[in-house]
């Protein structure tokens, strides 16, 4: 064989640390960008990434991947799948692209922070590929929805969303700026790649890919699973960094960063992915419930990964486990109620058959969410006719997650779920509100990082949203008729209940 094996030269390509002479190490790796907690260059030289790839292999593999994904798209484009797709699935696509495309492009900057300010050569090389990967994910997730812009103005939000102050966008930006765009290199390694990408992104990409395949959206299924193959590689950047921190007496710091990121990721996924899986995906196409995906991937696989690497379960693990039965049902209820505040049409997902499925997956759903949230709305709509979204008496937003503070309606002790509860905190004379003790704990870890931010609710109170009406708020969200969300079924779902009423009479 006239070509060398990768193993013959790989180590040389990542042996690139040197001792700076003309500038100091601290100037070259300033703490606000590097975040190495004072650990010097030589400590990081033991960094060993588990997934090894060379430049040559990368450009070949990625060319092949793109050839596959783009050619399937081209072949299926004329089939106009979306014109026949069920409304719930179309909503998922609008939500997905609007929530993730621009953020993925932004993630390339965060990967580049590791590639510049990481103190290990192997980490810098892997992050070079990570930066390219995220460049891909931004581009491909703009190329795909662009073919749909003529179908609905809501698809425009794939590029528009992150430039607005729409509430879900504010929540997503607050999270990703915290774990990615506004974090130092070590923080990005631990919070974005290790916690978020290892723990959660397969929920969005593999879970949705499975649902997409079931729904017949081969193009999207292919896209999502191809993206996940990149994520699976660059997600491994964080693990060896965790090991180095642990080996050098920084376990508590590593644990803290990972704990913050996991909870923050959970609150986002409960807002975006939970409703998609349990309410939007057509019933007969659901691979698993959101809870089952969470149990398998986060409470199963990721928990093992955490323990194997030498970290502990986050202290709030049981709280999060219990939250599986509540949070995303509340998010869905809130989003449907105020569907004008989002850029996708919101399916209620509560036909009798869907409710039976929810009760099966979430025992107790009927006597809480069913009886105390949805039934009163149905009764009111049947009596007075459906009404459009109204401005909710401004719900309290969590000053960490930036989403409504929720509880289980009709909850009593002993039932599944939890009561509606604010976890307040007064800090430097300002009263903050949190949706859980974990959100409050995160704030307390670094108050200076979070204290200046105003939630959308705070902005309303502060008079920053004018006029303080539904119209003023939608204007602040940059949502106009044609792009704001409607009931995805045009309230046709009420007919089933009307029939029941007739029969009962």
């Amino acid at each position, binding site marked *: 064989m006239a070509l060398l094996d990768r193993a013959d*030269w790989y180590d040389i390509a990542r042996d690139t640390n*040197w001792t700076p002479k003309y500038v100091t190490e601290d100037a070259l790796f300033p703490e606000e960008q590097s975040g190495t907690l004072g650990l010097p260059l030589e400590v990081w030289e033991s960094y060993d990434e588990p997934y090894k790839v060379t430049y040559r292999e990368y450009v070949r593999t990625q060319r092949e991947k793109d050839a596959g994904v783009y050619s399937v798209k081209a072949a299926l484009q004329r089939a106009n799948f979306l014109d026949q797709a069920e409304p719930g699935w179309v909503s998922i696509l609008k939500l997905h692209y609007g929530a993730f495309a621009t953020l993925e492009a932004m993630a390339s900057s965060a990967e580049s922070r590791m590639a510049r300010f990481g103190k290990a050569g192997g980490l*810098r090389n892997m992050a070079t590929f990570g930066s390219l990967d995220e460049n891909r994910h931004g581009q*491909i997730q703009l190329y795909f929805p662009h073919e749909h812009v003529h179908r609905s*103005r809501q698809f425009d939000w794939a590029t528009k969303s992150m430039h607005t102050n729409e509430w879900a966008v504010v929540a997503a930006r607050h999270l990703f700026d915290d774990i990615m765009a*506004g974090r130092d290199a070590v923080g990005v390694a631990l919070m974005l790649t290790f916690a978020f990408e290892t723990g959660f992104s397969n929920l969005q990409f593999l879970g949705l890919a499975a649902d997409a395949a079931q729904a017949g959206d081969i193009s999207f299924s292919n896209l999502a699973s191809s993206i996940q193959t990149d994520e699976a590689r660059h997600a491994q950047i964080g693990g060896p960094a965790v090991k180095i921190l642990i080996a050098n007496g920084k376990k508590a710091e590593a644990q803290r960063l990972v704990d913050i990121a996991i909870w923050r990721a959970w609150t986002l996924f409960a807002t975006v992915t939970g409703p998609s899986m349990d309410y939007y995906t057509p019933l007969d196409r659901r691979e698993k419930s959101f809870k089952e995906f969470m149990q398998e991937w986060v409470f199963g696989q990721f928990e093992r990964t955490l323990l194997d690497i030498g970290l502990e379960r986050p202290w709030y693990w049981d709280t999060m486990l219990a939250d599986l039965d509540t949070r995303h049902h509340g998010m869905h209820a809130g989003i449907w109620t105020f569907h004008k505040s989002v850029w996708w049409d919101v399916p209620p997902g509560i036909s009798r058959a869907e409710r039976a499925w929810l009760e099966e997956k979430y025992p107790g759903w009927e006597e809480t969410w069913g009886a105390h949230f949805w039934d009163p709305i149905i009764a009111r709509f049947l009596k007075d006719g459906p009404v459009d979204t109204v401005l909710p008496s401004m719900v309290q937003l969590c000053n960490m997650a930036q989403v409504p503070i929720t509880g289980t309606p009709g909850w009593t002790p002993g039932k599944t779920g939890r009561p509606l509860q604010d976890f307040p905190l007064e800090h430097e004379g300002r009263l903050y509100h949190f949706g859980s003790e974990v959100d409050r704990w995160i704030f307390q870890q670094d108050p200076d*990082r*979070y204290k200046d931010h105003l939630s959308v609710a705070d902005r309303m109170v502060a008079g920053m949203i004018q006029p303080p009406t539904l119209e*003023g708020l*939608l204007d602040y969200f940059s949502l106009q008729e044609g792009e704001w969300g409607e009931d995805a079924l045009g309230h046709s779902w009420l007919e089933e209940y009307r029939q029941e009423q007739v029969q009962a009479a």
Partner: protein
Amino acid sequence: MSTESEPLKPLRTWSHLAGRRRRPSEYEIVSTNLMYDAKNAESPFELGPNIPLSKWFKKYRHGSPLSGRDWEEFRDPDELTYRAYNILQDGQETYIEGLFDQHNELQYDAGLTAAWVATLPRLYTPARYAYHTVQMASHYLVQIVPSSTIRNCATYQAADALRCVSHRAYRTAELKQIYPDSGFGTAERTAWENDTAWQGFRELMEKVLVAYDWGESFVALNLVAKPAMDEALLRQLAATGRRQGDSLLGLIADSEYRDVQRSRTWSTALVRFAGERPENLVVIRGWVEQWLPLAERAIDAYCRALPDSPQAATTATQAVHGFLQSLDLH
């Protein structure tokens, strides 16, 4: 109020591109208007204006003297997208792989002269450190530049630098197999840190790496330091190599030089774009004059060490000057 106006109708492209007369290219569809944090000068991130990185970005991005343009309007003349980049570079790497394969088959390295074999671990293989600094500095641009269209160019440039690092690492290992006691794979760090030939580039790049203002970082790296390095480490080393009977080195460098030309194409476009505001040209010229002496010293120190190449330093310096003159910057 927005609610009183007509419902928004679907468009044929993104709303931010819809006002233009022509259909957008794939490049524009996937590359433009993506950098949300560049819009808010007071608080780049959703966390508030006072976190450490907000201060950093306010100072080094929004506070840059290179300013006054809507940077999202910048376009890469090559309209390079991710998938096109991989097609391009997979082709280039297939070519390089062919070179490696054929030359190894022919036992090429065994035919190098002893004097040249002694030169390579001093002047060639340590260049992986030099190109790694370009990789790092390009990644700084990725995060600090003010638009997604500039960010893309820097992303591919960073990857190109890793390509150069990889070629040198590969050749290091290959040469070590034939010449295990010549310092291949062992002498490079010492050479980079101590050899007089490298101290100019090392000083230059360490200082470029801490030039944190986005505009200065771009000028110092893309207009001065990287051109100096490319002319000395690719062009002049390759010319010397050919005279010493090492044609492979030049063939690899020629392929790498294609990436250099792509970098200069977008760098030229960015200077012209920035220069539509005349004050920016004054700022850029100031930085060029500030950084050029260091780069010239680096070229000189390196090229003086090249055997039998008395004109190398002059030729390399003239090439850098020529590039700057083409931009009316020198």
